[in-house]
């Protein structure tokens, strides 16, 4: 995430000091990507070094106020008009983990998939709850936050669909080739079902 550009974009609205920038950032994005104030000040120092912002003295309480420069405005305009590069899809670790899980012997792929699905589903439930709370507000910052939540919802949803897809394909492959470590279901002994996880009041159960 480009902290630099986010802060510059905020400075374009009005001059601000570090804590204020952090608060404005989090008002729009929730605490999804928490910024610590040290990170904010380090970034401001770099912006000043690069001529994109200027420290223009203190307010009455000793806060250093920063203002955007013309070069900074140009930088913001470029940022908004340039697509974000998709060099590092955030799902990579999961994709890599599954790619290894299906090829490394002895890994219970079904459990890997189900545990991820559960975790992602729980996150999706959280986003949905937050969205319900944010619904109805007409404040621009709340709308911004709710759009961020939508992005998280779409991301989690896509991940779950992909996991469902992986499971279906692996099941089909297991049925066709009888590959042991692709097997997601143990027909011979359902009581030792591979998904079995002792959890909550509805534990996994085999027949009888």
């Amino acid at each position, binding site marked *: 995430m480009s902290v630099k550009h986010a802060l510059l974009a905020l400075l374009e609205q009005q001059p601000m000091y570090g804590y204020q920038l952090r608060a404005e950032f989090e008002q729009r994005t929730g605490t999804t990507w928490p910024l610590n104030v040290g990170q904010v000040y380090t970034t401001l120092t770099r912006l000043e070094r690069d001529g994109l912002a200027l420290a223009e003295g203190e307010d009455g309480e000793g806060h250093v106020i920063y203002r955007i420069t013309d070069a900074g405005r140009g930088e913001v305009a470029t940022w908004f008009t340039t697509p974000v590069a998709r060099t590092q899809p955030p799902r990579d670790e999961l994709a890599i983990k599954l790619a290894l899980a299906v090829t490394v012997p002895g890994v219970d792929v079904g459990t890997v998939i*189900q*545990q991820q*699905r*559960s*975790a992602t*589903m*729980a996150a*999706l*439930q*959280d*986003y*949905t*709850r*937050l969205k*319900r*709370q944010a619904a109805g507000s007409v404040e621009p910052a709340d709308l911004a936050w709710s759009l961020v939540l939508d992005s998280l*919802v779409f991301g*989690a*949803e896509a991940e*779950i*669909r992909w996991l*469902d897809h992986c*499971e*279906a394909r692996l099941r089909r492959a297991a049925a066709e080739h009888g590959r042991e470590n692709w097997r997601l*279901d143990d027909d011979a002994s*359902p009581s030792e*079902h591979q*998904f*079995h*996880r002792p*959890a*909550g*009041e*509805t*534990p*996994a*159960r*085999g*027949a*009888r």
Partner: protein
Amino acid sequence: MNNAVLRLTDVTRTHGAAPHEVLALRGVSFAAYPGELVAVMGPSGSGKSTLLTIAGGLDQPSSGEVSVEGVDLARLGQEGRARMRRTSIGYVFQGLNLIPALTATENVALPRELDGVAPRRARAEARRALEEVGILDLADRFPDNMSGGQQQRVAIARAVVGERRLILADEPTGALDTETGEGILQLLRARCDAGAAGVLVTHEARHAAWADRVVFLRDGVVVDETGTDRADVLTEPAAR
């Protein structure tokens, strides 16, 4: 915890006879409490509809127990189960099951009238339910003259009309666009927040996410469960 609105204990359901028998459910234990919306997810054929029809008293388990509001459905008998379905249970079928010869209002009012509510009052309740799902303007239309999504909303109105304690919905958002689908979930959620227990079968993760708990079915077995646990629901009613 005994105050579950719905409780399934070690339920199995076998279709057909050996050697071609299908084990649709293999020892499912499941409960839904007042104020709770539970989502059930799983691949096609994993037993979701079977679970729901058994919970709604429309089908009987091969073994195990099903109780609604503490009453064992097996002990109720045919007549008692039918009454339970009319008064306590709202059901949205995967196929909509609307009666073609009745208007939207009449379809929705039917379970109330069957249960002895005066026709005028039943119709007034039906119109209110249709208003909640956003199709009051179609109150006098017949199902054949409505779109799939509109029929779906009639089916949902029929399931929530009256003071149902248990709402069972099998893919209720199937034929709806995202926006309308969310509206239906809002409605289900509101009914549960008001004290009903709901079970929602869906293959859409974003819809399941409206639930307090998500239960995963595979091959007739509950394999996993997620979501706010009961303690959290009780101490933080409005969530985070």
